[in-house]
């Protein structure tokens, strides 16, 4: 009996080892060697290893908004124009960025004309033409495709091609954020159109997971779900070939720091601040790149007066809150001084934060005085201020992360020192961010102080939360104005700025919004939330962008020390 048990067990072990050999997603790449055959790579081969703590769910443009997919696109795809380390646009597939001066933008701002380069081609030598752009737009707005977002293509009335190198885009109304939001990856028409015609949808196209054809400096060689993705140099690249031969991306959710310390990778991404001291001590370089995101507090200030604590509707109470929190200490102690307190929502876009706002200081004495003057005094001696029988108790919620939980605890203590009691809620992200229709607590106005990381539609300055039409209700369950604030002046300015194609006019409008945020304290900035990278000693020439992170990956080089 024991023997038969042993036999069965050994068979199972053998079977699973055999199965493991056949397992894994191995697409049929064009002319590459299977890695299992290679022993140790020859010393001349240059390989960059990057660690992603999260795996991209799909590689197809339009189908994902994950940062990790966006970053990977620079390896094997190209945008019409990309952004450099200062987040300034530079032309990629187009000859120059359309502007009013070169006739790229019409007088009324609704028609944009792009001129494509004539040397751009896909890796199978098919040229990239205006047809690919038209196809991308059609796929984005098609109801048959489950794209993650149709924005901004759903604002476009028509895209046409007077000749193969020219693309003319006509918007229904002047649309200011076009530069930041259009053409994040082009779909190859010659490959995908037949699939769409045959199946009626692009959702199941193999190219989305296994892009055999691309137009970037590298091409996907292999993607093993859960482990890694490997890219090799594109021999048919239309521009200067890449310096390195291969890019390995490893997916490591928990132990990225250990892997970096052990020298298993050249670049780490999304580094948490708590890992920074160890990595710096081990000789890695920490690089931060602004991406428009700032962590901040938003207030439930219900204009109709029904939801939330009445204290928050008084601007003086909100001012007391911002004065009572020692934000510099949070940045200095929790983030090792790597971040600063952002004074403006447009902190990363200096053009729109001009003249730049200054931060409210840390002044708990002044905070207490303000609260007294507003009528909030502790009449029943329980340590919490009250007024007209209502205690100043605020619900403070955010999603689960160690950083945020620490911040909540510190802010709770700071506010308790001035007599405001805060109750902390720490919720899973997809519960915290659920919409009104899904019973999300923030959306339903159950949380007074909401914290999350956000910014304008970077690198554009567009915002939309504060529109009165975005207030959620039973009729509008997807509304994103979870602050229930209907400030008519703010609403009009926000609606106006997204139509102002003229940069000067827009700057004036946004400056007004900026000042309004400051005066009314609709938003408190806690810290800037840049992309944080850890660069190993072998990597050279790397630069990062806050929009197209690996924009110059063709220039990266590996130098063996």
């Amino acid at each position, binding site marked *: 009996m024991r023997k038969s048990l042993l036999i069965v067990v050994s068979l199972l072990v053998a079977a699973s080892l055999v199965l493991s050999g056949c397992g894994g997603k191995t697409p049929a790449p064009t002319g590459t060697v299977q890695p299992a055959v290679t022993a140790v790579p020859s010393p001349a081969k240059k390989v960059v290893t990057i660690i992603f703590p999260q795996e991209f769910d799909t590689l197809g443009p339009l189908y994902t908004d994950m940062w990790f997919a966006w970053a990977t696109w620079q390896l094997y795809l190209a945008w019409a124009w990309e952004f450099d380390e200062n987040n300034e646009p530079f032309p990629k597939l187009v000859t120059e960025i359309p502007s009013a001066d070169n006739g790229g933008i019409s007088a009324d701002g609704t028609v944009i004309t792009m001129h494509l380069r004539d040397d751009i081609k896909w890796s199978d030598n098919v040229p990239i033409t205006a047809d690919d752009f038209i196809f991308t737009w059609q796929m984005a707005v098609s109801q048959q495709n489950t794209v993650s977002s149709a924005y901004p293509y759903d604002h476009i009335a028509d895209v046409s091609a007077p000749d193969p190198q020219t693309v003319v885009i006509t918007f229904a109304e002047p649309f200011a954020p076009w530069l930041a939001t259009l053409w994040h990856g082009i779909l190859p028409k010659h490959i995908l159109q037949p699939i769409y015609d045959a199946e009626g949808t692009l959702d199941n196209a193999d190219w989305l997971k296994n892009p055999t054809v691309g137009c970037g400096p590298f091409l996907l060689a292999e993607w093993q779900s859960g482990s890694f993705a490997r890219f090799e140099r594109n021999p048919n690249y239309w521009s200067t070939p890449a310096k390195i031969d291969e890019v390995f991306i490893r997916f490591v959710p928990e132990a990225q720091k250990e892997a970096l310390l052990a020298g298993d990778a050249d670049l780490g991404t999304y580094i948490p601040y708590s890992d920074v*001291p*160890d990595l710096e001590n081990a000789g890695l370089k920490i690089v931060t790149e602004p991406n428009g995101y700032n962590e901040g507090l938003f207030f439930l200030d219900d204009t109709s007066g029904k939801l939330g604590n009445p204290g928050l509707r008084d601007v003086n109470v909100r001012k007391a809150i911002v004065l009572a929190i020692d934000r510099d*200490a949070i940045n200095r102690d929790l983030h090792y001084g790597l971040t600063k307190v952002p004074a403006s929502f447009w902190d990363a876009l200096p053009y729109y934060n001009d003249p730049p706002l200054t931060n409210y200081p840390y002044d708990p004495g002044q905070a207490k005085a303000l609260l007294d003057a507003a009528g909030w005094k502790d009449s029943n001696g329980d340590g919490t201020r009250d007024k007209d029988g209502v205690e100043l108790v605020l619900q403070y919620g955010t999603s689960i992360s160690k950083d945020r*939980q620490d911040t*909540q605890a510190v802010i709770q203590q700071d506010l308790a020192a001035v007599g405001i009691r805060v109750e*902390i809620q720490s*919720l*899973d992200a997809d519960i*915290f961010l659920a919409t009104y229709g899904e019973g999300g607590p923030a959306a339903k106005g159950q949380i007074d102080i909401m914290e999350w990381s956000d910014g304008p539609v970077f690198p554009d300055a567009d915002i939309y939360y504060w529109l009165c039409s975005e207030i959620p209700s039973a009729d509008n369950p997807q509304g994103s104005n979870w602050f229930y604030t209907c400030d008519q002046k703010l609403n009009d300015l926000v609606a106006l700025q997204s139509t102002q194609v003229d940069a000067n006019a827009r700057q004036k409008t946004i400056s007004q919004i900026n000042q309004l945020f400051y005066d009314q304290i609709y938003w408190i900035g806690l810290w800037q939330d840049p992309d944080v990278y850890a660069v190993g000693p072998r990597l050279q020439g790397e630069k990062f962008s806050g929009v197209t992170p690996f924009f110059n990956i063709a220039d990266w080089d590996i130098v063996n020390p």
Partner: protein
Amino acid sequence: MESTPNKIAVLIPDELETPPLSLGQLAWRRFRRHKPAILGSVIIVLLVLYAFGSSLFISEADANRKDLSSRLLPPSAAHPFGTDTIGRDILARTVYGGQISLLIGLTAVMVETGLGILVGALAGYYGGAIDSLLMRITEAMLNIPEIFLLIVMAKYFGGKIPNLTILGREYSGSVVVIVVIIGLTSWMYLARIVRAEFLSLKENDFVLAARATGTPNREIIFRHILPNSIAPILVSATLGVANAILSEAYISFLGLGVQAPTATWGNMIDDANRYIETAPWMWFFPGLLILLTVLSINFLGDGLRDALDPRGRTV
């Protein structure tokens, strides 16, 4: 009549060596011999004193006081267990966290035992269709790995229960969630044991007698049969506390357990996840406490099992 004891003592001096022992006394004797179990009991008493008794010396405000300037300090005279990422004293936090961890363990077991006894007793006593239905449900739940069930339930209940304030202390709603889900995922084992006990006990004479005298079913179940099957229930409940404390630690490590502001030993280890090398005191002390608690409960349970085992090999 002459005094019977003397007569017996005179007539049969060899047969009456010791007075007959009750089950409890017999069990106690066997338990006493099990040295790890005694050690375990002592440790548990000490731990309970540590967690609940220390609140005489350390207030909750001490546990919650944040001081960014003294963050991540190693153990010293001022902070015997060091401080955490926002300057809270770890010793104080293990005291209050311990209260929560131990309470979670106990209350989860109460839920689990209550459910298990109910289901097992009804299935075992009534039999037939009720038994079939209840056992199908039990099997269904047993067929799903516990950790999966815990994760799914944690997400289901997450965020739905608001923070509670009992006796002036604030508890995160997730404490109730944890107790409920641990209870809901572990009752099946006890239910099967109780059912087996009931199946074998209900054919006994004393049950037939009770029925013959017209005792209502509920009384038969709870006052006649149940007390006789206390042994496996007790062992299962004891080991269940250890399992509950471990389950809480796992779920908190995965980020789905008790959330701030409430501290537990489990989520203190989760907090230390990024500081394993740089601040080992953050995970060492709560980890040690979990280990000691679970270990001593396991010893205790083992001792109880040996002591209450009717086959009694070692008396």
